[in-house]
């Protein structure tokens, strides 16, 4: 045998840049990809192109003013951002929110989960070439946004959750509209499945692609539908039930193989479960106040302002300075459509938080992109990115 090394002159490693301006990167994500032909040899995500300094800005604002900042992080799951922050502050203040507020929060959060998965499905199918899914999913998404607009006046970024409960009670007719939506939604999900489930091209592109083992995912800190698709049945709604998830009956879909097809199926089944959850929460919605009675935290109702002096003083103090939180720090986690969304707040006794940090699931999940795409084709990289469901607002904060 000859001693000289055989140089393979056909293998040439090329480093190319995908993004930040790219139609398929779901936001401004930049990937440095080393390609050998069409096979991905190495991958480095470069993020920070939509970094907004939200965590730093939050340190300058009173607690209730932080809520609009925090909800613009993961901009498809805004109710979950609000819940993580409000839940953390409520734990720090050691107040309990009323039952009606818990159920209202769950209704809005599950509708938001549906909304997030619909946008994911529309844009992912668009990346893979199934453009019709985009139109259908956005049609449903507009119905959900109509419901949000009915309850809070805004389509997106509604700042509906406040510390102590929700901002306002739902109007008359909201329940009827939600039930009408819930009646037609399962058949719409059936339509999506009919379009994609047995589509030969979709199956060939997603089956067996981007498989990462369950142990590796746990090492990488991945949570949410990505972890569940690989077979680990971990869902914070069942493991650490907060709000009223303990009273509701729902299943958690778990996949087997952990490829792109499993991720797709897990998210579709989660959409069905969300529909059931909203129905159950509506059925069990109790009467009562929608925000806590503690006047040191929540604004008094307006009719009291003309009669009660204490109410006027409380209102004044809350609006000008805001409520104070006793010193301490806490981490509180909730299950967002992408995984574990946690909020860490350091309170120093004043009306402004000393540190707000959001543990965003997309930021941590992005670390698995390299494992998913090594030794796959470039087209599979696009598919992996679609199934990963990254939201750059959450990654960059």
């Amino acid at each position: 045998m000859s001693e000289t090394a055989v140089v393979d002159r056909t293998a040439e490693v090329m480093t190319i840049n995908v993004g930040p301006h790219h139609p398929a990167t779901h936001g401004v994500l930049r990937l440095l990809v080393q390609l050998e032909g069409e096979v991905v040899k190495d991958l480095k995500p470069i993020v920070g192109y939509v970094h907004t300094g939200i965590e730093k800005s939050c340190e300058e604002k009173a607690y209730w003013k932080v809520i609009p900042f925090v909800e613009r992080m993961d901009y498809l799951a805004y109710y979950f951002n609000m819940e993580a922050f409000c839940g953390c502050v409520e734990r720090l203040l050691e107040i309990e929110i009323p039952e009606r507020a818990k159920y209202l929060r769950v209704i809005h959060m599950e509708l938001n989960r549906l909304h997030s998965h619909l946008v994911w499905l529309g844009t992912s199918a668009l990346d893979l070439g199934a453009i019709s899914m985009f139109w259908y999913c956005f049609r449903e998404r507009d119905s959900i946004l109509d419901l949000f607009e009915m309850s809070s006046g805004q389509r997106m970024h509604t700042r509906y959750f406040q510390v102590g409960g929700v901002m306002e009670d739902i109007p008359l007719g909201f329940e009827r509209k939600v039930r009408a939506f819930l009646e037609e939604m399962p058949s719409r999900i059936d339509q999506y499945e009919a379009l994609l489930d047995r589509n030969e091209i979709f199956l060939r592109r997603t089956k067996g692609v981007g498989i990462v083992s369950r142990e590796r995912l746990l090492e990488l800190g991945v949570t949410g539908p990505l972890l569940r698709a690989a077979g680990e049945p971990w869902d914070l709604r069942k493991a650490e039930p907060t709000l009223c998830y303990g009273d509701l009956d729902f299943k958690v879909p778990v996949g087997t193989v952990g490829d792109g097809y499993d991720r797709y199926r897990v998210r579709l089944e989660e959409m069905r479960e969300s529909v059931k959850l909203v129905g159950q929460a509506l059925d069990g919605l109790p009467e009562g106040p929608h925000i806590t009675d503690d006047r040191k935290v929540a604004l008094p109702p307006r009719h009291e302002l003309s009669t009660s002096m204490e109410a006027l003083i409380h209102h004044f103090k809350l609006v000008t300075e805001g409520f104070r939180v006793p010193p301490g720090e806490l981490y509180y986690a909730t299950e967002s459509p992408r995984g574990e969304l946690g909020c860490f707040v350091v309170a120093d006794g004043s009306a402004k938080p000393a540190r707000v940090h959001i543990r965003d699931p997309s930021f941590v999940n992005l670390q698995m992109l390299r494992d998913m795409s090594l030794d796959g084709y470039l087209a599979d990289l696009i598919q992996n990115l679609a199934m990963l469901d990254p939201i750059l607002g959450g990654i960059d904060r």
Partner: protein
Amino acid sequence: MGAGGTGLEIERASDLRVRQHRARDLLRGDLEGEELERYVEDRVLTTTLEKALTWARSNAMWPATFGLACCAIEMMSMVSARYDSARYGAEVFRASPRQADMLILSGRVSIKMAPVVRRIYDQMLEPKWVLAMGACSSSGGMFANYAVVQGADKFLPVDIHIPGCPPRPEALLHGVLKLQRMIQGKPDLGWRRRYNAEGTEEWAKELPNA
């Protein structure tokens, strides 16, 4: 029915008859002079070439896909079936800036992204327009901090600012339509003429010959 009704019909019928005769005359080559001119004027839209061009340009503006943050989702919603922007000419979102004429800056522009946006803008071919969608790209929005450029017009000429956080798709459509009317009204091409920025070009210094 009735005298008035039948009268009208007769009038229309006679008008129709007259038009038929005139059309037959034209085809035979019998119309001339003033009759011919009137015939042509009734049927042909005349306008200046500039107006026609701006009308065509404004009604077929193809946006470049430039979704940065939350406003991008509302922009996608504008494209979707309910608030269809295709009926106003923004038919396809072109991914390549070379093929697009409108840049909808939807979302907050961070300091890391600003040079990228500028480069994409420079790659677009004239004529091009920029819509700053939302509060963050118009003025920095609620984020008055170290990481966000306080308004895209710090480094780009912006034609229309659309307020909102995020603006409703109808608001975005209103902005697009306003841009169309603006284009039809002011047909100057080239942003340096539009913004009185002539004479501000910077040219690379001539290197001394060695």
